[in-house]
């Protein structure tokens, strides 16, 4: 495995370090990294936790492609070498660890919570929602914030101010929820938001959870355009 190392203060830019890792059929790339950390070089830093593809922390660039390392297997790459780099498009804090605070700020900016007007009903009954209404946004609620889509999107990589695929998909997740009363037009109808996307579509390809953020964005473009043409129509 060829692993990009970056030690702030020591390196001016990432350098590649090679390690010999046994090729075991059951091993994910993450198991390979753990082998390095546990047996060969304790100073390698990277994030991981659930190793079942749901916590979203182990995204890295594997042979040029953004992948979840816990769900990518060594055997996919034959005898190697496999090159592991941090996710593209983000500042690198150390080794394979990138700075994602920018994304968290973007996420907060789209109001990713249920917006209601008026009194909240008592805690004895739920809001009704049919399976069809659930289906309307369900897909967009599956995002694990792994940020592979950002790393795959050239628009984001060129311009870090772009609101980006996952944040817009999550805005749509609430926007299309039958219980929500906000359309998030003010934040989404922006040049750095949906209009920044040129529909490269790589975000959807990279997404391990089939969220299809590209679709979420294009749908909002139509919504926003219709809303602009017919100002009295809300959603």
């Amino acid at each position, binding site marked *: 495995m060829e692993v990009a190392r970056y030690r702030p203060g020591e390196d001016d830019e990432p350098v590649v370090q090679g390690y010999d890792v046994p090729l075991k059929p059951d091993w994910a790339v993450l198991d390979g990294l753990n082998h390095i950390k546990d047996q060969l070089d304790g100073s390698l830093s990277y994030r991981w936790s659930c190793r079942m593809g749901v916590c979203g922390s182990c995204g890295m660039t594997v042979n040029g492609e953004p992948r979840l390392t816990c769900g990518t297997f060594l055997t996919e790459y034959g005898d190697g070498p496999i090159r592991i780099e941090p996710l593209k498009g983000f500042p690198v804090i150390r080794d394979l660890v990138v700075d994602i605070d920018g994304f968290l700020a973007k996420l907060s900016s789209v109001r990713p919570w249920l917006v209601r007007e008026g009194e909240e009903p008592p805690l004895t009954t739920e809001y009704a929602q049919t399976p069809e209404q659930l289906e309307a946004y369900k897909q967009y609620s599956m995002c694990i914030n792994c940020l592979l889509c950002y790393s795959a999107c050239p628009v984001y990589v*060129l311009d870090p101010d772009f609101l980006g695929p996952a944040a817009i998909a999550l805005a749509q997740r609430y926007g299309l929820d039958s219980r929500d009363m906000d359309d998030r037009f003010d934040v989404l*109808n922006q*040049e750095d938001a949906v209009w920044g996307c*040129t529909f490269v579509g790589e975000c959807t390809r990279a997404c391990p959870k089939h969220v299809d953020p590209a679709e979420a964005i294009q749908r909002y473009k139509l919504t926003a355009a219709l*809303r*602009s043409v017919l100002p009295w129509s809300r959603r």
Partner: protein
Amino acid sequence: MRRRLEPYLWLLFSGGGVVAALVLPVLVLLFGVLMPLGVVDWPAAGHLSALTGSVLVRLALLVVAVLCLFHAAHRVRFTSEELLGIARYDVLVAVVCYGGAVVGGIAAGFILF
């Protein structure tokens, strides 16, 4: 200001994309490739003139031309910004691109009417 324009530009772009997809390939195939190569004969000039004689057809052609040009302008704007990294000059690029489309549209209008 730009923010409020963006949705309209996108509508024009999308409309242009659809129109371009539906009508351009066959026209280019006929007039640009098959006829010049002699695979099919050029129709009589009179027939074509008659076709474009009707105001309705000419209006339709104008719409097609304008939309397609807008479509192209929009894409050229973004692609050039992405390829050349000149997004910071977006306003200028936009003026040039859409301006080109407007000029083209006016020219089309002159030709047709």
